């Protein structure tokens, strides 16, 4: 699409296919129609049923307050799309512009948006993962099943992994007065996302609410009874606990396997793209007609030294989808960059936790407002003397100010006192777990000699 005429024709009669019919996919579809795209729109999703909202699945749905079926995403406008649901995509052919489906169908497109998201990382031993009473929480069905299991009044629940999802589930178990053990490999909950100091606060919160929190331990085995029901967990320190529900909350796996062989820069880390949400090829070239949005996208952020960052945040999915949709139907000069500052929230143990920026992009952290012991505070994160993120516990109304500080590269620690400043706001090292926890090994290898021949190919996939 080089000329304005071509663009007009495409907006009128073009074919757009969206692979991944969840939050990002739906919002992109709505935005495309909002931008005046009247051509054919096809939505492909591996789940049956309408797109639904995921944040309530680890919160209100588990308390039984909202049924899993009531999480359908509201429609902002009629998207007038053809919905191909319950069938996963299995391949993408850039040469012929075709998406392949598991049932053998081939769907042609002029432009495609990939928003296939993330699925729950399952327990690593398949037979143990299949035990009755072992859950992950990512889909409506998962949440429904776990809600039923919690309502049945288990003698004890084991939550494996104390990231945000695991901590939210732990909070709900305690709210329902269910005895609970949380096992976390890191020294404290939320450490991977927010660092050691905030992790300590999260650990205090859990313990104060009666959680049997075990950190620095690894669950090695989930043991079932003769009826195939989960009964006991073994730890790497030799100890065991008896429980009848285990929730595996070990993060997600990006749904990129179906793109193997497509030539896109897709792998365990997501699909690399530019700030305009156009996908990169394995060789690092920008594509013209392949766009990416949501959890599966890995987008450079100029604020963070143009590093490629993938975020599993609700707001990111929405904003990226809107930028991608706009760019799909706009000429080069009218394209938007996706430059928003990441925003994330969680609610656990009665505390509203909210963050702006990228806390992992930091070397120091300092409590700038409030009181850590009251679990009401704001902590600012800094990297080499500038503010890069902030997190609030029950103090979210200040975060716009910190977003400002991030956007203006304000000095860290913030120099001026505020009325509610703790006596000691000395920055401390942020202390994230070492990269060994996250290392995935090689993902590509380079071959060829002449500039015209140098090419990247995907290395074998790692788990």
């Amino acid at each position: 699409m080089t000329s304005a005429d071509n663009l007009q024709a495409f907006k009128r009669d073009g074919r757009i296919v969206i692979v991944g019919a969840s939050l990002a996919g739906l919002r992109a579809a709505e935005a495309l129609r909002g931008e005046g795209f009247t051509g054919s729109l096809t939505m492909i999703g591996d789940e049956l049923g309408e797109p639904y909202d995921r944040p309530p699945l680890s919160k209100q749905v588990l308390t039984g307050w909202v049924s899993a079926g009531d999480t359908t995403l509201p429609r902002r406008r009629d998207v007038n799309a053809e919905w191909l649901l319950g069938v996963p995509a299995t391949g993408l052919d850039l040469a012929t512009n075709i998406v392949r489906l598991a049932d053998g169908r081939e769907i042609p497109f002029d432009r495609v948006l990939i928003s296939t998201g993330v699925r729950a990382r399952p327990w690593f031993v398949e037979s143990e993962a299949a035990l009755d009473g072992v859950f992950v929480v990512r889909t409506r069905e998962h949440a429904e099943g776990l809600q039923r299991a919690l309502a049945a009044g288990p003698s004890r629940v084991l939550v494996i992994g104390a990231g945000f999802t695991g901590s939210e589930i732990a909070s709900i178990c305690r709210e329902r007065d269910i005895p609970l053990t949380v096992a976390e490999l890191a020294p404290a909950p939320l450490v991977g996302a927010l660092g050691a100091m905030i992790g300590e606060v999260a650990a205090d919160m859990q313990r104060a609410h009666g959680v049997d929190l075990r950190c620095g331990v690894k669950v090695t085995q989930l043991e079932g009874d003769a009826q195939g029901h989960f009964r006991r967990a073994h730890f790497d320190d030799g100890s065991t606990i008896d429980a009848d529900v285990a929730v595996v909350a070990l993060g997600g796996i990006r749904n990129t396997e179906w793109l193997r062989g497509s030539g896109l820069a897709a792998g365990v880390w997501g699909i690399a793209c530019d700030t305009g949400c156009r996908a990169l090829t394995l060789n690092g070239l920008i594509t013209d007609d392949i766009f990416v949005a949501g959890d599966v996208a890995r987008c450079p952020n100029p604020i963070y030294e143009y590093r490629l960052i993938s975020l599993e945040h609700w707001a990111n999915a929405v904003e990226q989808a809107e930028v991608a949709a706009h760019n799909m139907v706009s000429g080069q000069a009218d394209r938007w960059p996706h430059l928003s500052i990441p925003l994330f929230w969680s609610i656990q143990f009665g505390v509203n936790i909210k963050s702006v920026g990228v806390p992992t992009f930091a070397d120091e952290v300092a409590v700038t407002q409030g009181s850590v012991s009251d679990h009401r505070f704001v902590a600012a994160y800094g990297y080499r003397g500038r503010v890069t993120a902030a997190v609030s516990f029950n103090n979210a109304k200040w975060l716009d100010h910190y977003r400002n500080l991030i956007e203006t590269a304000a000095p860290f620690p913030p120099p001026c006192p505020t009325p509610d400043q703790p006596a000691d706001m000395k920055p401390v090292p942020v202390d994230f777990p070492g990269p060994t926890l996250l290392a995935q090994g090689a993902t590509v290898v380079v071959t060829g000699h002449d500039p015209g021949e140098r090419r990247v190919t995907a290395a074998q996939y790692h788990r």
Partner: protein
Amino acid sequence: MTTTETPDMLRRILDYSSRADPYPLYAELRRTPVARQEDGSYVVSTYRELTDLLHDPHLSSDVRNLSRPMPQGQGDATPAFINMDPPEHDRLRRMAMRHFGPPHTPGLVTGVEPALTSAVGSLIDDFAGKEQIDIVDDFAYPFPVSVICHLLGVPREDEPRFRVWVNDLINSIDYDPKTDPKEKLEKGVQARKDLRQYLGGLLEQRHDRPGDDLLSRMANDDGPDGRMADDDIVSTANLLLIAGHETTVNLITNGMLTLLRHPDVLQRLRDEPGLVVPLVEELLRYEPPVHIIPWRAAYSDITVADTVIPKGSQIMLMLASGSRDQNRFHDPDRFDPDRRDNQHLGFGSGIHLCFGGPLARREAQIALGELVRRLDRPRLVADPPPYRRSPVLRGPIHLHVEQAAG
């Protein structure tokens, strides 16, 4: 350079002759987003700078952080949370909010809706046979007062007593030592005392007799923050009574005035009652009841739009100007109930965001919806109507409307 001394502009805005239409003056004021005054205070008038400041933890609501003392003495009264900073502000607002809204009292506003509708209905019933109505005296004043009395648990028959106090108190807030007799200030101080004493007396009766009203609940509830001290309950009740009095009157009156000036919108509202929801949002932007936050204090040096506001300075926030900023709102001087992305400053923003906002919205929606439905071809008698003195809480003192007979 964003800072210049434009004392004349502010003086013209505060002058009573500008009350009917301050908006062209605001537009001029916005050319200098942060304007230093001769007395060392700063006037902020643009949307971006106002929202930055309202979220800036260095902006203090506590008079003790002003390097120059406030012109009028607040007496020895315990301040309400509106004049406090965290953590005290947060604690008291949290304790009061337990009884006033979600998550602990999610049904409060929806629960009073039938009472709102019936109060509005009976006031309009009284219009019958009258050719001329004063929207203020006959409707916009008595309605929110009855609502806040009901919610707080203040006997409606005491209204004439505290109406005088509230009037004197509000007048003293606009006190100008250059033009006003000192008596006005003293009246305000006395009114403040009398009102506190009155509310304290009501509170006494409520102890250990839990009822449904806010005074009883605040007096008898032990939440996670403990029990509210009596002084704090009185300050909070005082704040809610005054805020419930003074602002909603203007919101409803400004709303009716705006509708009468836009007959096409009035007709649309008759035909599609659901329009009242975005319409009230647009009103909060276009003709807000609170125009100015007259003072905040710079707790530290604050940099706004490249201007350093020194620690201890008084800062005046021109909210109504920000909501008409052409750099934030498309065609800002047009009243457009279909406006999208309407993030107005009508209720302020940040931690002091109007506590009663959800109630005020419902009051205005029900009041305007019913007025428009039931008034028969209403006509404005005088445009502009006479205005109240205050440039801060701005609105007509009377709004005479004629309706077709019978």
